[in-house]
């Protein structure tokens, strides 16, 4: 009897349990219905999907107090304890998820490329398939707004800043010598092949407190976390040979690339504006080793370069050309670890060492210089909540430089510098529309004997799904360049300083991007000297100043026509400085007021070809003509260069590549060098600074050998 009652009771209760109806409505923070949210009782199958009006209703056999879960991709998952019997017609308001794909990102100052970039300006491939870049990361970046193309130098000049005001970082750690060896008016290129990097962030100002010792800009290169598969790459080029190999194991992988460049055969065929005794030759290699732990990744990056060249350059001061013989050896090592340590905590640490040895013979003067530079870095970040993230860390930079000059007398110069810096930064998300980043950087410089505190702040506000405003402000300091601080035993230098204000508006849709930026940059504490050249006995001071203000515009589009991509970038800049030995406040010679680049890429399926054109235009640059009374009064004619490239897939793994820079052979003039003394008739003679050759042709054949037949080296070109 008892059993029967129990049985009936059981039956009854299951019957009554089934009667429990859970119902309600799901809304977003503004009260608008959320369609398609998943509502269910935790640990059971009982649940429903919200309707067009956000409403839901379902039956459950559960009883008592249970957890009700409401989830929807772009909102934070909602979980609450309910009494199953009494949960009807309730309104559930979901909160915004700060990690959602469409949350605001502060974009002022930054141009990003890569997988993880939220507002990506360039795709990783773009860096290398841009006509005229010839695989040089820096040349590709010079098609972006905010940069100045300075043909006789080749380095990155950002918003009225000198080239040394930009610092390069690999996996967050500084590279002391990012460019190849060069001499007077010969352009250099970036030491890094784009091959090993998966993400590039280029900031033209207002960057995070994590980075210091850069007045204008930072270039952040991140090596790939993972290699796709094992392969061997072989390249035959008109300028040399390249060889690469990747090996992959369970948790680790190793990539090695070697490159030998010799311009002799090329220069024998193509006429040069320069008289080479020994054309440019280099042997270099890069390697990356990665090991994946359960909670982190360790990377080791190493590169070496050995370069030499020997040439005779005409000099307006002498009857005979001056011979320059250059030998450079460079080594760079960088190891880093990045991983999570406990919930919400992330640790990044690293160490780098750079060594550069230059042996330069200029006419009869021999200059041997050596630089040893190291950096130690530790960074911690903690996600406190979805609304707040805190990061802080420390850096230690060590630089030893010395130079031996063997001329009529032997001279030694050099310096030792130790910089300790700490920073803290907070990321606050008020909502998916409004985010703020505030940071502070403290540094102590032993060489300059000074302490600096640099505040940084930026703010992002989202206007609509596709558009947003950002604002950035920051103070930046940097040790004066080696040309000055090597005379530190004669003069106590101070840091040079800059302050940035940036206002950014970005509009982005899939395949389309409009980015505009207004900026103002204030320089002070710049080094000045009173002699023609920088000498140990010059009278130095830190009283120089300057400004840069301007407007940057970038428009990129891949929707206009199938297989066609293009971008247009325009920069206007107004900048003046009184520094070095300038007698008055003028626009320096590396600044052109207008810069315009148009880059196009078109894939022709029938021809299995990608072709691209790049046109770069800059208005004239100032130069100083001592025949005139006013300082820096001259202006060169404008600069224009149209470049073309063509990549042809012979088979999937074999590519034939052709490129030519300055297709039209425009006679460009970068500036003028004037004689130090007037000739007998009282006139200062001059000599134009021109490219080493009007055009540059490149033909290469690239072959990939791997299991995967679809892999090729298109991305390396």
């Amino acid at each position, binding site marked *: 009897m008892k*059993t029967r009652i*129990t*049985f009936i009771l*059981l039956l009854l209760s299951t019957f009554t349990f089934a009667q429990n109806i859970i119902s309600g409505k799901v809304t977003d923070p503004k009260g608008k219905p959320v369609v*398609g949210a*998943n509502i*269910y009782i*935790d*640990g*059971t*199958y*009982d*649940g429903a*999907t919200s309707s067009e009006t956000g409403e839901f209703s379902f039956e459950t056999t559960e009883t008592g107090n249970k957890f009700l*879960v409401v*989830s929807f*991709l*772009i909102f934070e998952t909602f979980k609450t304890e309910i009494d199953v019997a009494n949960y009807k017609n309730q309104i559930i308001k979901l909160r915004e998820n700060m990690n959602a*794909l*469409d949350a605001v990102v502060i974009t002022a100052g930054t141009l990003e490329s890569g*997988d993880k970039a939220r507002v990506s300006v360039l*795709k*990783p*491939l773009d860096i290398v398939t841009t006509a005229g870049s010839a695989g040089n990361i820096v040349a590709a970046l010079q098609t972006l707004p905010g940069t100045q193309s300075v043909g006789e130098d080749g380095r990155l000049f950002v918003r009225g800043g000198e080239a040394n005001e930009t610092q390069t970082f690999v996996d967050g750690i500084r590279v002391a010598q990012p460019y190849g060896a060069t001499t007077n008016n010969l352009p250099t290129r970036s030491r890094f092949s784009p091959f090993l990097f998966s993400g590039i962030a280029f900031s033209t100002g207002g960057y995070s407190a994590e980075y210091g010792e850069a007045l204008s800009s930072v270039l952040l290169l991140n090596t790939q976390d993972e290699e*796709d*598969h094992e392969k061997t790459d072989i390249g035959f080029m008109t300028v040399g040979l390249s060889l690469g190999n990747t090996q992959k194991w369970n948790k680790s992988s190793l990539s090695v690339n070697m490159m030998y460049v010799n311009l002799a055969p090329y220069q024998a065929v193509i006429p040069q504006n320069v008289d080479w005794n020994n054309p440019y030759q280099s042997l270099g290699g890069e390697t990356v080793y990665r090991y994946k732990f359960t909670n982190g990744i360790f990377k080791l990056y190493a590169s070496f370069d050995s370069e030499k060249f020997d040439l005779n350059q005409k000099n307006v001061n002498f009857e005979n050309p001056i011979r320059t013989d250059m030998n450079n050896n460079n080594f760079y090592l960088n190891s880093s670890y990045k991983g999570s340590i406990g919930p919400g905590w992330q640790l990044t640490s690293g160490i780098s060492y750079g060594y550069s040895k230059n042996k330069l013979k200029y006419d009869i003067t021999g200059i041997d210089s050596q630089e040893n530079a190291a950096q130690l870095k530790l960074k911690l970040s903690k996600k406190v909540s979805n609304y707040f993230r805190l990061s802080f860390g420390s850096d230690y930079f060590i630089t030893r430089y010395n130079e031996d000059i063997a001329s009529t007398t032997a001279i030694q110069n050099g310096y030792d510098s130790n910089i300790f810096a700490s920073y803290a930064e907070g990321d606050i998300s008020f909502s998916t529309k409004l985010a703020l980043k505030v940071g502070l950087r403290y540094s102590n410089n032993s060489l300059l004997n000074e302490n600096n505190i640099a505040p940084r702040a930026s703010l992002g506000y989202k206007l609509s799904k596709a558009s947003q405003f950002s604002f950035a402000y920051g103070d930046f300091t940097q040790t004066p360049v080696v040309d000055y601080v090597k005379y530190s035993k004669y003069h106590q230098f101070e840091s040079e300083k800059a302050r940035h204000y940036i206002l950014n508006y970005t509009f982005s849709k*899939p*395949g389309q991007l409009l980015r505009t930026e207004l900026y103002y940059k204030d320089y002070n504490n710049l080094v000045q000297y009173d002699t023609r050249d920088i000498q140990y006995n010059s009278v130095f001071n830190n009283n120089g100043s300057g400004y840069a203000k301007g407007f940057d515009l970038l428009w990129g589009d*891949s929707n206009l026509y199938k*297989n066609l*991509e293009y971008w247009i970038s325009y920069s206007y800049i107004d900048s003046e400085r009184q520094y070095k030995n300038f007698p008055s406040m003028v626009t320096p010679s590396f600044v052109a007021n207008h810069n315009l680049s148009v880059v196009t890429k078109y*894939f022709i*399926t029938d021809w*299995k070809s990608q072709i691209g054109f790049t046109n770069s235009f800059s208005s004239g640059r100032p130069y100083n003509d001592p025949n005139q009374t006013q300082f820096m009064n001259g202006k060169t004619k404008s600069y224009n260069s149209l470049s073309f490239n063509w990549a042809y*897939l012979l*088979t*999937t793994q074999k590519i034939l590549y052709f490129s030519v820079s300055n297709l039209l052979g425009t006679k460009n003039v970068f500036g003028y060098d004037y004689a130090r003394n007037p000739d007998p008739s009282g006139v200062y003679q001059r000599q134009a600074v021109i490219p080493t050759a009007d055009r540059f042709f490149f033909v290469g054949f690239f072959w990939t050998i791997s*299991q*995967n*037949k*679809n*892999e090729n080296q*298109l*991305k390396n070109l």
Partner: protein
Amino acid sequence: MTKIITIITLFICSLLSAQTQFEQGMTKAFGLWKEGKNTEASQLFERIAAAEKNSYLPNYYIALINTTAVFTEKDKTKIDLLLTKAQDALDAEMIKDQSNSELYVMQALIYTGYVVADPMTNGMKYSGKVMEAYAKAKALDPNNPRAVFGEADYQLGGAKWTGVDTKPLCAQVDKSIELFNNFKPATPFSPKWGLERALEIQKTCK
């Protein structure tokens, strides 16, 4: 005595009903998917996945539903959301078991989704990953018809402009059909799809 029997019976019943609850849930979800109610089906699978930590199947189907939806979706932002969802579901199972051939086939399919969504951007980047995932799936189970067919199918898709020799690929398709015919799913809900598409491809292959 009766009490004990009742308790045992009830216990067995509940065991059985737990079993059938999973089956019922899965059957219902498949029904919703067949009706084209992708969101509802995916969400029911999500609920099942949350309740049944021991089976990889619910998360597998969340990944499959959301990935296959990409092949007909045009809105790029939506594609991103679908693939993110698929990847999250797959990751949840990958952590538990790295020796399941079907999970690698699923991974290859998600990467294929990225390629199909934007070949210009993702083709070069994901092709290697697609091939690697299929290679792993085949290494774990050389007789998995979906791995054999998927690998051949992906390369055939690109053959139009890569100029790869299709003959050995078509032979692989033939081989996969043989494998499909001999394939016995481990449970009624285990992955068994793919034969129809393989037959379709076989027709155009040659």
